[in-house]
């Protein structure tokens, strides 16, 4: 348990730093992140530009702050989308059982049979490579995992006595589902949603790195790395800081996720 608090603390600090940077990037940055400065191209980190400037003379720190906003925004919307869709599908499937469950789970498993970000790549071809395309593509790609976890929880819950009691008391199916079953699924949903936030931020930066994400000049950590790539020999900082931002964010989410899982999932207790 000692381990848990330490990991949880570091994770919380990293995530708090991410959220603060994103909030800061919402209304303030040291320089205009889009302002070109042809006299200040590829400048090394200095007191004027803490993290240097890029190939167009734009301030890297300012772009990282605004990029944090993009990551958090896309991550939050993706996770919300996947959680709402996945939870509803899982609830219906697990509660209805029978042929409805069979059909939903068959489609669900087919979507889960696509590896990694492949399904998201295919969906991006449909929705178009932009911010909202990414949110829909990743949201749809992640919903099946949520649906599966929620369905599993519902299947074991619906046999419990307090659910039986709710029905005997004459409560409607929908009431029982949302008032009694859903609140008891919150723990597994929280654990999965936390990891999903990490997947979403990683996938978003990977897709932006591939040029399929948020199009430049709007900064995201992924497209900053891609744009800085040809210059990394003269300007190491262009390859260093955006990647560091992604890695620290993911580390924070992983640590926090581990801590949450230890706390909320009793089966994992003692294994960490």
């Amino acid at each position, binding site marked *: 348990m000692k381990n848990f608090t330490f990991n949880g603390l570091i994770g919380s600090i990293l995530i708090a730093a991410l959220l603060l940077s994103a909030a800061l990037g919402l209304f303030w940055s040291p320089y205009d992140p889009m302002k070109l400065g042809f006299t200040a191209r590829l400048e090394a980190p200095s007191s004027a530009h803490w993290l240097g400037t890029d190939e167009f003379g734009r301030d890297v720190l300012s772009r990282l702050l605004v990029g944090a906003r993009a990551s958090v925004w896309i991550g939050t919307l993706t996770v919300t989308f996947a959680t709402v869709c996945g939870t509803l599908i899982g609830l219906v499937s697990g509660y209805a059982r029978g042929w409805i469950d069979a059909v939903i789970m068959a489609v669900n498993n087919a979507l889960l*049979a696509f*590896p990694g970000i*492949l399904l998201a790549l*295919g969906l991006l071809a449909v929705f178009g490579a932009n911010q909202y395309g990414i949110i829909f593509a990743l949201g749809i790609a992640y919903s099946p995992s949520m649906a599966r976890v929620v369905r599993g929880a519902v299947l074991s819950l619906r046999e419990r006595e307090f659910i039986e009691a709710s029905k005997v008391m004459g409560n409607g199916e929908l009431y029982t589902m949302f008032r009694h079953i859903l609140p008891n699924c919150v723990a597994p949903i929280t654990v999965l949603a936390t990891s999903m936030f990490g997947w979403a931020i990683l996938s978003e930066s*990977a897709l932006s*790195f591939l040029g399929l994400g948020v199009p430049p000049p709007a900064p995201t950590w992924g497209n900053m790395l891609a744009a800085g790539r040809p210059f990394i020999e003269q300007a190491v900082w262009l390859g260093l800081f955006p990647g*560091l931002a992604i890695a620290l964010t993911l580390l924070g989410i992983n640590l926090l996720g581990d801590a949450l899982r230890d706390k909320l999932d009793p089966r994992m207790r003692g*294994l960490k």
Partner: protein
Amino acid sequence: MLKFVLNRLLMALPTIVLVSVTVFALIRFIPGDPAALMLGDMAQPDQIAAMHSELGLDKSLPEQFLIWTGNVVQGDFGRSIVNDEAVLPLVVSRFLVSAEIVVVAVLLASLIAVPAGVIAAWRQNSLTDLALVGTATILLSIPTFWLGLLLLLWFGLKLSWLPVLGYVSVGSNLTGGLLYLVLPIMTLVIHEMGVLIRMARASTLEVLRLDYITHARAKGLSESAVLWRHAFKNAFGPTWTVIGLILGNLLGGIAVIETVFTIPGLGRLMVDSIFARDYPVIQGCLLFVSLSYVLVNLVVDLLYPLFDPRVVAE
């Protein structure tokens, strides 16, 4: 045993069908008319209609699906809109490039990470354990494309030990080709070690708590016999499944690594086809990778009894 094999094969069948339907449907959802796209801006309505009937787009969707499936089964994945190349040979040749990187990387990562995870579990909460788990968690958090860039910067540009850009196939030039593969493989090995160390550790910990391990120790067996002959054998199953999942996930997510190291693999082909709106190639890549993923997992499942014979009896 035969029943187990047949059962697994039958379970894979509906997945294969549903995956094919999904890929087919996905491409049909893409806005725009493929015929108009193929003919360009100057196309006349009657040319577009002729192209529709040539492509079978004037038929109903179920009919189109059956025709498409029939062609796919015969190995006809269609032709690229961009350069009229046959899709299947193109996809297969690019797949081989990606597969050599992924398979070697997963093999090396497993050989290093699985023993490391078992040792971490054996010395739970010791300094070794904390160091290994800490390292694994950090490795897990480093995106492969950033790690790749850093390795490229260090070994390629600063030290000039390894070639930075390009690709030579191992078949045409063995040592030259291998040099180009070192960095991408190293990147994937380092990243996947993070996942595997944690998995191997968790499943070993679960087994080490069981009574038969206490019994083996009480019997006076040496620690290494307890760990490798008794604990490891039972703990490896879940890790084996994860190795299969990683293999498939890497095939799906290889595009970023291929972009960093400019390797002409399957991932890059798919991304380029999305840019070019080359639907037959996108469709071919999607279908090929997802079916290989199903196949890899099937093979992993079928080999599972080698590590844990209990699943056959279930």
